[in-house]
């Protein structure tokens, strides 16, 4: 799904730090962006994601080392050169009060493309985003989704080596968001560009991220392959941010009888909410999981998911207990009362059965991408 391990990073940051009025707004020990990878900067509002994005883009002055295509970006001229090879998209599209076509061509003209070349490449970018029919329209006659498509087309028209996206979907409605995610990931894969995607949305990070860095107080506290990071948050605050959900990775398969399952790599099938066929990660909130002392009799429960396992850990979570069950190939967390734990005689190493409704399992599509 991501770039190959041997790929050479296009942008590398080391000990990069943005300091204003004696306060560190963002700091990165080490970050490498690979072509073909979508690197998500995830964190709460005010965590320093946008500041870091600007530092990586050369817009915000920063101490430390930034290397673009193997060369250090040390001077104002080098920062300008970096900005010419990158492009950015923000939550708001920031379009000029001219035609859609002129907007998309504007980035190319700024970068020195001839009028004819700008026209040709702008038309190709409009085509790519499916908005060629809007070429002559003014921004005030566009919907929010159309305007953001124009903004993305403008960024892609310059064929950037790195594309920076700062909450690009935050202002859009959910259906528009879903469609755009699929289209964008396809485009990124074809272009083999490095993408930095800032979001505060856990599900969006799961849907788009090859790699995820979690930011807190301006610092990256954890970085890694998206699912590894989500499965094992390294700090209590990151775990709080993510919630206690279990993440199940697999393939959505719809059966002829309209039931939907998530097929795990082991072949185990988890009944889940309706979703389109394809790779997905499903979130399972622990408050929706019940535990049985032993397997319930056949046809005795409406719960579609019944997974025998072993108690891996029991830890307090407020007034409740968080019980992690190592079921076949997957860990399932359940929140239960202390009274329930006592009654079931739960202890680490003991056998138990975790069970949950299909409707408790929320799949998020992870779109398979291949570099062409």
């Amino acid at each position: 799904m991501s770039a190959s391990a041997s790929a050479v990073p296009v942008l590398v940051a080391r000990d990069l730090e943005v300091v204003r009025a004696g306060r560190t707004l963002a700091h990165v020990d080490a970050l490498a962006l690979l072509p073909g990878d979508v690197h998500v900067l995830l964190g709460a509002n005010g965590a320093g994601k946008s500041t870091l994005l600007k530092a990586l883009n050369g817009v915000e002055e920063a101490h430390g080392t930034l290397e673009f295509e193997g060369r250090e970006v040390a001077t104002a001229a080098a920062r300008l050169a970096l900005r010419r090879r990158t492009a950015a998209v923000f939550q708001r599209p920031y379009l000029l009060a001219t035609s859609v076509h002129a907007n998309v061509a504007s980035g190319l003209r700024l970068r020195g493309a001839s009028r004819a070349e700008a026209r040709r490449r702008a038309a190709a970018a409009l085509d790519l985003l499916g908005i060629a029919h809007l070429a002559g329209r003014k921004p005030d006659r566009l919907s929010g989704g159309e305007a953001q498509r124009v903004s993305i087309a403008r960024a892609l028209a310059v064929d950037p080596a790195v594309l920076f996206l700062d909450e690009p979907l935050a202002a859009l409605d959910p259906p528009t968001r879903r469609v755009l995610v699929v289209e964008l990931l396809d485009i990124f894969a074809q272009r083999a560009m490095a993408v930095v995607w800032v979001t505060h949305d856990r599900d969006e990070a799961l849907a788009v991220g090859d790699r995820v860095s979690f930011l807190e107080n301006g610092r990256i506290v954890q970085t890694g392959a998206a699912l590894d990071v989500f499965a094992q948050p390294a700090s209590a605050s990151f775990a709080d941010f993510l919630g206690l959900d279990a993440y199940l990775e697999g393939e959505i398969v719809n059966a002829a009888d309209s039931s939907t399952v998530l097929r795990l790599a082991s072949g185990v099938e988890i009944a889940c909410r309706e979703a389109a066929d394809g790779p997905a990660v499903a979130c399972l909130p622990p408050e929706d999981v019940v535990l049985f002392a032993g397997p319930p009799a056949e046809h005795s429960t409406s719960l579609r998911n019944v997974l025998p396992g072993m108690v891996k850990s029991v830890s307090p979570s407020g007034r409740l207990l968080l019980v992690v069950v190592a079921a076949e190939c997957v860990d399932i967390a359940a929140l239960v009362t202390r009274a329930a734990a006592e009654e079931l005689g739960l202890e680490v190493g003991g056998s138990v059965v975790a069970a949950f409704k299909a409707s408790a399992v929320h799949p998020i599509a992870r779109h398979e991408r291949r570099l062409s």
Partner: protein
Amino acid sequence: MAISARNQLPGTVRTVVLGAVMAEIVVDVGGHDVVSVITRHSAESLDIKAGDELTVVIKSTAVMLEK
């Protein structure tokens, strides 16, 4: 069967409405209706029909209270 869910209420099925994917079951629990939405698959495999006696199971974390 020992189960962690704290609330297990015996009741009688009043109605079963089967949809394409889901089923809505209304259970009379001590004169009050409790509505359950489960998969059609589950409703069929448990063979739930009006008049059946069964147990409504609700986790304590899912119970809301109003005064």
